[in-house]
């Protein structure tokens, strides 16, 4: 099993349906190190993510690999993979896009923003005006 495949099995602690690879947190895998980048500077999940990656590496015989953190270029939602976006949608979170948010429940584009900030640093709160369900949207960042 390649190191990248191992990392594909490490879930994001706050949105466990996507992996740290889907979210673009894993930037590079070298022979001696995994290079990661934080999403938001103050995201409390950052430490938890590093710990889960460490545990996954140790458990698969890669205890000698280091974890390196880089800031540049800054993470943006463009780093989220297509597969990651699809998983978010299926989970009930509208993936980031430059267009009007689509309701992840009924697919309607007739939606409005309720609050710029949501339950985690990366999400905003929206509401569907057709099916009336509230939903989280991954902020464009």
């Amino acid at each position, binding site marked *: 099993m390649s190191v990248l495949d191992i990392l594909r099995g490490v879930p994001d602690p706050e949105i466990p349906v996507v992996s740290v690879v889907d979210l673009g947190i894993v930037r590079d895998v070298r022979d001696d190190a995994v290079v990661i980048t934080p999403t938001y500077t*103050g995201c409390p999940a950052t430490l938890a993510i590093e710990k889960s990656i460490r545990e996954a590496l140790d458990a698969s015989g890669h205890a000698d690999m280091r974890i390196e953190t880089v800031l*540049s270029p800054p993470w943006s939602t463009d780093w989220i993979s297509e597969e990651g976006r699809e998983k978010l949608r299926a989970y009930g979170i509208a993936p980031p896009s430059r267009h009007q948010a689509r309701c992840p429940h009924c697919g309607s584009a007739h939606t409005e923003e309720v609050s710029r900030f949501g339950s985690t640093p990366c999400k905003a709160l929206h509401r569907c005006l057709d099916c009336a369900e509230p939903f989280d949207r991954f902020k464009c960042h």
Partner: protein
Amino acid sequence: MRERALRLGDDSLILGQRLSEWCGHAPMLEVDLALSNIALDLVGQATLFLGLAGNADELAFHRDVLDFKNCLLVEQPNGDFAQTVARQFLFSNWQELMLRELCDSKEFGAIAAKSVKEVAYHARYASEWVVRLGDGTEESRARMVAGLDWMWRFVDELFDDETAGLRGEWDARIDAALMEAGLDRPKARRGIKGGRDGHHSEHLGHLLSEMQFLPRAYPGAVW
């Protein structure tokens, strides 16, 4: 370079701590989430900037008030929600412009480029609330005016030798939002300075006593 890192880190740390005082007390749930999220971003930035000046935890929890280099604006009490919005509006608009310039810096560029995206979001959020409160009811408008009036005296300090060139663009942004809110710019007054040299208002000591209590009472404590 260490001095600049302390200024940048302390501004974010102190405002982040201030904002977190709203957690569980904000006028509504959405605002509670927003202010806590902004506080988180700021504390995250502080950790990175202070990390350039030394050990971030050591600097945050084991310095006394005279050693803090934050501007006076960020240590001002929250007051009512309008006063908190006024402080955020004036500061985030300045911080965004300041960080944008800092993106080219060798020492601070990577942190600035990461932080500026977050701060742009804070500035938009605060500006929207200035318009909503200013252009709202008689009560909300009166509170917004009072909040801006209180915070305005701390604006001049933001523009020191390194950031004086940002004043024109900052003025234009502030005026545009105030115009949309139907508010006048507060009367010019003699600005109060001193935070960058460690001369703080009495408010900072109280903030630190709460923020630093635990690591000082139990040195080396871990979760």
